């Protein structure tokens, strides 16, 4: 009874749904009122042309002809951004779906979400704020995401340097109002930029405001505004939220819950037609541009629209993504972002937000429908029983059909099973065949390989083989063995001990006793002997052949050794290579041990010579030798080092050996055997020195020379030294000569190094000498100058005093005997003499400031300036001069000299303002790029900047003596002092507008 009840209940629900749907379907027909929409659009776009109005009327008329009238609210003015919808209109996709669509432009007071929610529009275009609105409870439903990525960006002028959210701190940023700014806000949040640090201003939607500087950052669409800026040639920075991880959907088509519930089929059809429109638009963008321009009166240029289309394509990705696709995960992520931003509450639900064009039964509406249903059921209770009966009949039919289906299914399954079995049989047979085939192939392959290997082995065997019997007698030998031993088969046959002149050698070169011969050892130990290395020394050859020996016993039936098989491989070459390697290693080690002392500064030549000799002796096994250098001054050979063999054997005293000098002969050659290599510049060795033509014997007490090797040291062809060795226990070889030669190269470098050092030392000494001489000259010159200054001071003043004094006396005592003209002349003599006295004094001061020792101290320039001004006031109390002296201006330098600078500059200012009734003189400090700049400013006579070059020259004046008195030395003196302080002094002025003198003092210049 229970199952039946449940199934009845479910059926009831389905039935009710059907009714409810029918009920809903009827509603639009009843309430379809297209007229107000047209009124709205006409009313808001007051500038619409008559043609447009006509079109709308025409559309209204058409709608009367049986099409459903719906409105689509755009976010903004007509542009390519909405191409898909225009395409759907133009291509008749909407008409085919039964719609008459009015597309209404957006405006700041006509936002799509409000329009759709209020029911004034059926559909709208909105960006991701759609989701936020849903989260805030607005009943909006996303139908399709047209732009997979948001077109929202921010624009700033490149010159502003703004290229990230961080840069926007303290800047004016235009933002969309309210929730529309979500992506921007998310970007700021994600970048940690606090909104109160940004000067947010409501957007004007006018890009001109960015251009004319009313804002620093402008909210924009990547599809639109960048083009304007590009056209105007304004470089711009694009700041895109995507870069900062805020990747939201762009434009979406949406509608309301209400619309979906009222007209589910219409919604599905409208969505499908719109997406068809979009596909068409993206495939035929040129054509749609024509439409946008022609039909919608868009004022943008075709180029601009093309730019828009291309930008759109990048955001839509129509070739990769099905147009309209929405990913629940992405909406979810966006919702989470809003929550993280605090723009929405965490307890949201996205249930019902994403429109599903192919819905599975959704029971969420059941309770609501149930409510409506129950009301209907109560009204039409009889219908219930009709339905119940209908249901039972249907169930019966279903059960019958199921039975038929089951039978059919069983038959089909059996057939499939048989086919499968057969297939398996065939597969197994096939596989077996394959396996057999491959096995046969492999066997053939193995056989061929093995034969090949044998043949190759036989070819490769290069061993000499000898067969011995149990007593060690040779039974047989192969040709290789005979060749190696240098004996014929007959000579070998039956022998146990071989010819006494012929023997085996150990690795160290000593003779191997017969008892240790490989055969003997195998017979004794009854064990095989493998990898034994031995030398073969034959009477008919000088060199030794080296062999690797294997000896294997073969046992007879009694367990006794029947035979011994001995095989040899010639390894002479390998042995030689090993020996060469060891030798090269030793030579290289010797060279590298020389390297460090050679490159270490300060290692003297004797030390290097000692190492060179040591290494050469080790390598060549020589007990005796010397390493010498040629004195470039006289050609003498100086032995930096010498060795004495066994101390006692050589009777020459140790100290005589060290640093011994061997002079060059008058003919430029060197004596004896040691001189031979020097004379020929060729290395050589001899094992019979006494027979050598150059030999002249040895001095008394000198050890006898038994063997001798000598290498000249050459540097760029020039003979600079020698390495000589003697009395090796073995014969010298070419290899020895080569090794010593290589070491010689190093020694040549050491000599070069030493000579360079000596050269530098010599040059340095010369330089020092020259510096000393020059210093003395300068000191003399300085003294002369001082004595000149002294005599100027003393001697020139005396006659001046005479001229001035006697003129004065004439003026005083003899005035009654002179006419006025005569007195005037005398006065001019006086003042000329006084001026000259002043010149002399100033000049002496100038030379003094260049010479005196400066004392580094902290100087309070403000105090000094004040003292100077007090003095100046006293000289002329009548003058109206305002001194402005900034407080506590300090400097590091010589107080006495800096006082002269200030004195000169302030006195100058005082002097050059003297012709003005009132004056202002200012002393201050200003900072320029962290450097303190001192200045003295006046509003006096000033000067013409074109004479600035003359300003600081000695005896240079910019004013005549009649205008302003002066010697022209004061500024030169000030400049010299400032230069001595590592500073700079300069001036700016304008005639009759005053002058400013600036100076700096370098820190730590003293």
């Amino acid at each position: 009874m229970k199952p039946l009840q449940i199934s009845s209940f479910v059926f009831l629900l389905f039935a009710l749904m059907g009714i409810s749907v029918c009920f809903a379907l009827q509603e639009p027909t009843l309430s379809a009122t297209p007229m107000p929409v047209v009124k709205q659009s006409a009313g808001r776009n007051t500038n619409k042309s008559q043609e447009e109005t006509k079109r709308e009327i025409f559309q209204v008329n058409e709608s009367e002809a049986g099409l459903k009238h719906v409105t689509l609210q755009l976010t903004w003015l007509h542009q390519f951004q909405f191409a898909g919808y225009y395409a759907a209109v133009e291509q008749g996709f909407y008409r085919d779906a039964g719609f008459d669509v009015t597309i209404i432009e957006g405006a700041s007071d006509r936002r799509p979400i409000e329009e759709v929610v209020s029911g004034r529009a059926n559909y709208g275009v909105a960006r991701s704020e759609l989701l936020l609105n849903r989260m805030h409870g607005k009943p909006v439903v996303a139908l399709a995401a047209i732009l997979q990525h948001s077109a929202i960006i921010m624009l700033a002028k490149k010159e502003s340097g703004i290229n990230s959210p961080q840069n926007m701190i303290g800047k004016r940023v235009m933002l969309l109002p309210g929730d529309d700014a979500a992506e921007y806000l998310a970007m700021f949040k994600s970048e940690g930029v606090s909104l109160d640090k940004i000067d947010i201003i409501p957007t004007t939607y006018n890009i001109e405001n960015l251009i004319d500087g009313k804002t620093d950052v402008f909210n924009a669409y990547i599809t639109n505004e960048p083009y304007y800026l590009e056209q105007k040639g304004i470089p711009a920075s694009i700041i895109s939220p995507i870069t900062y991880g805020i990747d939201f959907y762009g434009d979406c088509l949406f509608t309301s819950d209400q619309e979906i519930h009222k007209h589910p089929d219409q919604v599905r059809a409208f969505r499908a037609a719109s997406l068809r429109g979009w596909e068409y638009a993206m495939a035929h963008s040129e054509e749609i541009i024509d439409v946008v321009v022609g039909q919608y009166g868009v004022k943008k240029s075709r180029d601009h629209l093309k730019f828009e289309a291309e930008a759109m394509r990048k955001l839509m990705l129509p070739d990769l993504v099905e147009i309209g696709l929405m990913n629940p995960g992405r909406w979810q992520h966006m919702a989470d972002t809003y929550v993280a931003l605090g723009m929405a509450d965490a307890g949201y639900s996205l249930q019902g937000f994403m429109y599903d064009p192919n819905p599975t039964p959704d029971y969420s509406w059941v309770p609501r429908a149930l409510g409506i249903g129950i009301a209907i059921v109560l009204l039409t209770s009889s219908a219930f029983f009709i339905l119940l009966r209908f249901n039972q009949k249907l169930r019966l039919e279903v059960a019958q059909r199921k039975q038929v289906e089951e039978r059919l299914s069983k038959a089909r399954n059996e057939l499939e099973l048989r086919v499968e079995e057969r297939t398996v049989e065939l597969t197994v047979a096939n596989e077996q065949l394959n396996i057999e085939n491959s096995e046969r192939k492999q066997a053939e392959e193995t056989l061929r390989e093995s034969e090949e290997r044998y043949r190759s082995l036989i070819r490769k065997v290069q061993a000499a083989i000898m067969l011995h019997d149990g007593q060690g007698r040779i039974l047989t030998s192969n040709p290789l063995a005979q060749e190696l031993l240098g004996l014929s088969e007959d000579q070998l046959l039956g022998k146990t001990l071989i010819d006494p002149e012929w023997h085996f050698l150990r690795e160290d070169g000593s003779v191997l006793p017969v008892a240790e011969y490989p055969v003997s050892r195998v017979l004794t130990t009854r064990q095989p002997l493998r990898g034994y290395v031995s030398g073969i020394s034959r009477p008919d050859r000088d060199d030794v052949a080296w062999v690797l020996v294997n000896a294997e016993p073969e046992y007879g039936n009694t367990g006794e050794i029947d035979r011994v098989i001995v095989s040899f491989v010639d390894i002479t070459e390998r042995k030689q290579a090993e020996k060469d390697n060891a030798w090269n290693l030793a030579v290289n080690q010797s060279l590298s041990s020389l390297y460090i002392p050679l490159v270490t500064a300060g290692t003297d030549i004797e030390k290097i010579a000692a190492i060179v000799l040591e290494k050469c002796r080790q390598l060549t096994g020589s007990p005796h030798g010397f390493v010498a250098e040629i004195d470039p001054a006289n050609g003498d050979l100086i032995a930096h080092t010498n060795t004495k063999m066994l101390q006692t054997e050589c009777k020459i005293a140790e100290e005589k050996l060290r640093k011994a000098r061997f002079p060059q002969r008058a003919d430029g050659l060197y004596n004896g055997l040691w001189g031979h290599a020097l004379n020929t510049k060729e290395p050589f060795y001899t094992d019979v020195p006494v027979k050598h033509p150059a030999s002249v014997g040895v001095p008394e007490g000198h050890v006898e020379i038994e063997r001798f090797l000598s290498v000249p040291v050459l540097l760029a062809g020039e003979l600079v030294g020698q390495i000589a060795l003697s009395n090796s226990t073995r014969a010298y070889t070419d290899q020895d000569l080569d090794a010593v030669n290589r070491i010689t190269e190093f020694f040549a470098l050491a000599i070069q190094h030493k000579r360079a050092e000596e050269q530098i030392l010599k040059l340095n000494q010369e330089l020092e000498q020259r510096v000393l001489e020059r210093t003395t000259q300068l000191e003399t010159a300085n003294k002369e100058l001082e004595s000149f200054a002294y005599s100027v001071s003393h001697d020139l003043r005396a006659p001046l005093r005479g001229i001035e004094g006697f003129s004065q006396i004439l003026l005083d005592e003899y005035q009654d005997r002179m006419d006025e003209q005569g007195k005037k002349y005398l006065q001019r003599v006086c003042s000329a003499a006084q001026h000259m006295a002043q010149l002399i004094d100033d000049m002496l001061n100038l030379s003094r400031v260049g010479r005196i020792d400066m004392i580094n101290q902290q100087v309070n320039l403000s105090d000094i300036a004040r003292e100077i001004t007090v003095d100046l006031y006293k000289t002329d109390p009548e003058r109206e001069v305002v001194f402005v002296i900034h407080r506590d201006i300090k400097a590091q330098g010589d107080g006495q000299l800096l006082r002269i600078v200030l004195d000169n500059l302030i006195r100058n200012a005082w002097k050059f303002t003297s012709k003005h009734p009132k004056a202002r003189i200012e002393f201050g400090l200003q900072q320029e790029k962290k450097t303190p700049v001192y200045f003295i400013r006046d509003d006096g006579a000033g000067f013409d900047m074109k004479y600035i070059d003359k300003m600081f020259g000695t005896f240079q004046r910019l004013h005549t003596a009649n205008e302003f008195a002066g010697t022209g030395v004061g500024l030169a003196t000030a400049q010299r002092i400032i230069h001595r302080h590592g500073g700079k002094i300069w001036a700016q002025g304008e005639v009759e507008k005053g002058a400013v003198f600036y100076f700096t003092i370098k820190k730590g210049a003293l």
Partner: protein
Amino acid sequence: MEPKTILLVEDNLDDVELTLLALKKNNIKNEIKVVNDGAEALDFLFGTGKYSGRDLTILPAMVLLDLNLPKVGGFEVLKQIRDNEWTKFLPVVILTSSKHDQDLVEGYSLGVNSYVRKPVDFTQFTEAVRQLGLYWLLLNEVPPIKRESKI
């Protein structure tokens, strides 16, 4: 009491003349003994050479000493004055053209009483001489010198 002598050691005759004029202008009535080089100054002070036999007990009231002098320089003269018991307290004023720092240091090291640089301006020069006379001849007191002191 007869005003004491002023010894003027000066080789430049113009300067001699000007100094005499300046003294005269200032009504300084002392007898002026002019010598033209250092050697003569020493002879005068110590009664040697052409001044041998002079009554050495009569010391000048002060010595106006130039530095750059023929034969014996001003500093040498000063040194000998100070080295001698008899003359060591004699007021000596260096009256010179030089303003050389070294000269100042040397002068004071050797015990000069005053160092005056001769101004070029005659009026100033006259004023300087007036002040010197006022100070050294009228205001300044010199300790007595023992008669037994050897010269």
